[in-house]
């Protein structure tokens, strides 16, 4: 008369019902749908700052004609419109290479505005206009030489020269404040030099692809980190910010070093890396559906009497149902994962599975590479407390009130409210919330050694809190089930 017989029967009952198959088919279709959306989501424009549109430019031209540059009220708008039109036209002529657009956008655009200001603005200066035009022409001539490396070399030379100058200035001054400023400036210039070197060594033309994004992230992170240098003691908020910059910096360096697009979500690996963030809701809906019906359905259909007059104690019967729920959690996770790997593999190809998942580890201060399957294991372990607790909530409510609708609704509401609750708790720095279940049931915040949401939280404490919540829900459920009189059904 063992528990396993009861569990076996519970599993038979679940798998003989159509519900589980219908929901799995629906999830299968949703996965296909979502994978297709991921596939086409990134198929849009590559040059995200350049969207030449003839109609739009024409409308700008019409608007321009209505303005009079002689009138002081119109002049600013006139200059802006004219600059935009001239910039667009220039880009249209050089759209053969992305790096040219980047150069035009970053280096020539300011000149155009400046020139127009001298030509039409309040202080007209023909000499300046000529000078700027020469500058622009020189840059355009370089563009036509089709060598982006010229610009990188120029950047490098400029940075080296600046470093020399700054070092010279440093030797001449004794003033602490001035020295500090020079120090910061030197940092920035050194960063620029480094970036120019990286560009040349790794052959990264100007543009907007992930490598260029990494370059700009590296620059931003470096600047932010430099700001923290002079602060003696950081607040918790500042430490969080500092850490996120540290992470950005390490990630950007890793991307530039290896040339790997680690944030690319448009591969099977990229999707699997965020498996629970993307598809967690599917799993939870099915899990909660099973947990919320496994007891109450038997009461509502009257079949519970069949079970209760068998030679098993009520504790054993309820235990079997709880164990079955947990087995189903694992089953649903595995099935959904397998479905996603197959669908994603067919749509994106399986090649990316050999790429490692890379994440910054705050304990070792290095980028750590991990096999995608190991990463899925870690993801699953860190999400399990949440899934189990939501299932337990549905299980408890359905046993208490014999009402599956209520059980499923409340559990799903709990899941959806969790992120809002956490955001508010962190945003308003409500310290007592660190003992609340939603702050602790997602262990992924501890996975890479980053600081937790609030000071004083730790993985051990989170696990203890989850266990306590689990027991708070489970113990009364067993007591109620044991004491319940079977009313007329």
């Amino acid at each position: 008369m063992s528990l396993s017989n009861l569990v076996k029967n519970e599993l038979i009952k679940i798998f003989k019902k159509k519900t589980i198959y219908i929901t799995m088919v629906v999830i299968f279709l949703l996965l296909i749908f979502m994978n297709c959306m991921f596939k086409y989501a990134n198929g849009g424009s590559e040059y995200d700052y350049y969207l030449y549109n003839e109609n739009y430019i024409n409308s700008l031209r019409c608007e321009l004609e209505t303005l009079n540059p002689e009138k002081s009220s119109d002049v600013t708008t006139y200059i802006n419109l004219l600059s935009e039109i001239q910039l667009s036209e220039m880009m249209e002529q050089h759209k053969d290479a992305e790096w040219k657009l980047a150069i035009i956008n970053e280096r020539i655009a300011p000149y155009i505005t400046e020139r127009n200001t001298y030509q039409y603005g309040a202080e007209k200066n023909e000499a300046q206009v000529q000078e700027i035009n020469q500058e622009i022409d020189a840059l355009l001539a370089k563009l036509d030489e089709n060598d982006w490396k010229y610009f990188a070399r120029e950047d490098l030379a400029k940075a080296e020269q600046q470093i020399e100058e700054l070092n010279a200035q440093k030797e001449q001054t004794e003033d602490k404040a001035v020295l500090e400023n020079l120090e910061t400036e030197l940092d920035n210039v050194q960063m620029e030099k480094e970036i120019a070197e990286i560009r040349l060594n790794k052959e990264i033309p100007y543009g907007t692809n992930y490598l260029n994004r990494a370059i700009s992230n590296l620059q931003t992170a470096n600047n932010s980190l430099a700001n923290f240098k002079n602060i003696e003691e950081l607040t918790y908020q500042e430490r969080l910010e500092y850490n996120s910059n540290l992470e950005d910096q390490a990630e950007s360096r890793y991307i530039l070093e290896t040339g790997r697009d680690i944030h690319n979500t448009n591969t099977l690996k990229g999707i699997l890396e965020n498996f629970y963030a993307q598809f967690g809701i599917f799993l939870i809906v099915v899990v909660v559906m099973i947990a919320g019906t496994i007891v109450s359905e038997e009461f509502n259909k009257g079949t519970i009497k069949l079970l209760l007059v068998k030679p098993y104690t009520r504790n054993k019967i309820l235990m079997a149902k709880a164990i079955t729920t947990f087995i189903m959690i694992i089953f649903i996770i595995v099935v959904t994962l397998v479905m996603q790997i197959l669908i994603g593999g067919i749509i994106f190809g399986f090649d990316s599975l050999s790429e490692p998942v890379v994440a910054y580890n705050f304990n070792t201060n290095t980028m750590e590479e991990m096999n995608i399957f190991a990463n899925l294991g870690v993801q699953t372990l860190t999400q399990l407390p949440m899934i189990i607790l939501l299932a337990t909530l549905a299980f408890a409510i359905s046993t208490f009130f014999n009402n599956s609708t209520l059980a499923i609704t409340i559990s799903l509401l709990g899941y959806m409210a969790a992120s809002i609750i956490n955001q508010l708790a962190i945003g308003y720095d409500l310290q007592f919330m660190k003992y609340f279940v939603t702050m602790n049931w997602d262990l992924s915040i501890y996975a890479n050694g980053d600081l937790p949401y609030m000071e004083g939280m730790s993985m051990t404490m989170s696990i203890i809190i989850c266990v306590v919540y689990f027991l708070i829900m489970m113990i009364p459920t067993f007591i109620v089930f044991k004491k319940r009189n079977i009313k007329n059904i």
Partner: protein
Amino acid sequence: MVHGKTTTIKLILGLQSITSGKVTINGYDIEKEFTHAIKKVGAIVENPDMYMYLSGYQNLKLVANLYKGITTERIDKVVKLVKLENRIHDKVSKYSLGMRQRLGIAQAILHEPNLLILDEPTNGLDPEGIKEMRELLVDLATKEKMAILISSHNLAELDNFCTKVCIIKNGEVIETSEISEIKKETSQDLQLFEVDDVNRVKNIIRDMIVIDNHRFKINVSKEEVPEMIEKLVENKIKIYEVKQEEKTLEEAFFEKTGGNVIE
């Protein structure tokens, strides 16, 4: 009608907690030693609620999983016994109430219990179904040697095949004894005579109850009957039939419960 039939059965089966007194089955207390007490019990409480989305056979298989040593032969035998062999692989949702009732009995006797508890087993069945059910229960009692406890308010039904009754009224046990005992207790010796002319009998015998021109009842014991016949024959009265009139369980019940006041 709340008289406590179903409640009693639920108390016996441990489905409701007992506030006073105790229930023992096969010597085990149902509350303290539940698993031992219930081991040799089969039951249908209220309706024969089965898993509708499973076939009859799958339902029986679920029950078989929960007991040790129930072989497929045993399942087949029970299916044959309740005469479901042709429909056992159909979904229970397609069964008639009678078939569900029989499947309910099949799942209750699968583990060869020595006590079978049935709550209104003939409720909702057609006359043929009732007859079949009665035959099945008599079969089980004689062939499978199990005690069967039936709750019912259909007294004519119980009269037909029960040996012992317990009468509950408004939650209280009024009587527990053999049916034959109850009848003996409540029936007086009532004899029914059919003759050619009742009016002429009036002059010969007193204390008789006239029914119509040809029939009358009289309260005399069996032993006195020959004497009476002799008397009538002497007076040239033609006698067509003399029979002892027995009370039904129903009449006995009303006598016991004091009229048909059922609240």
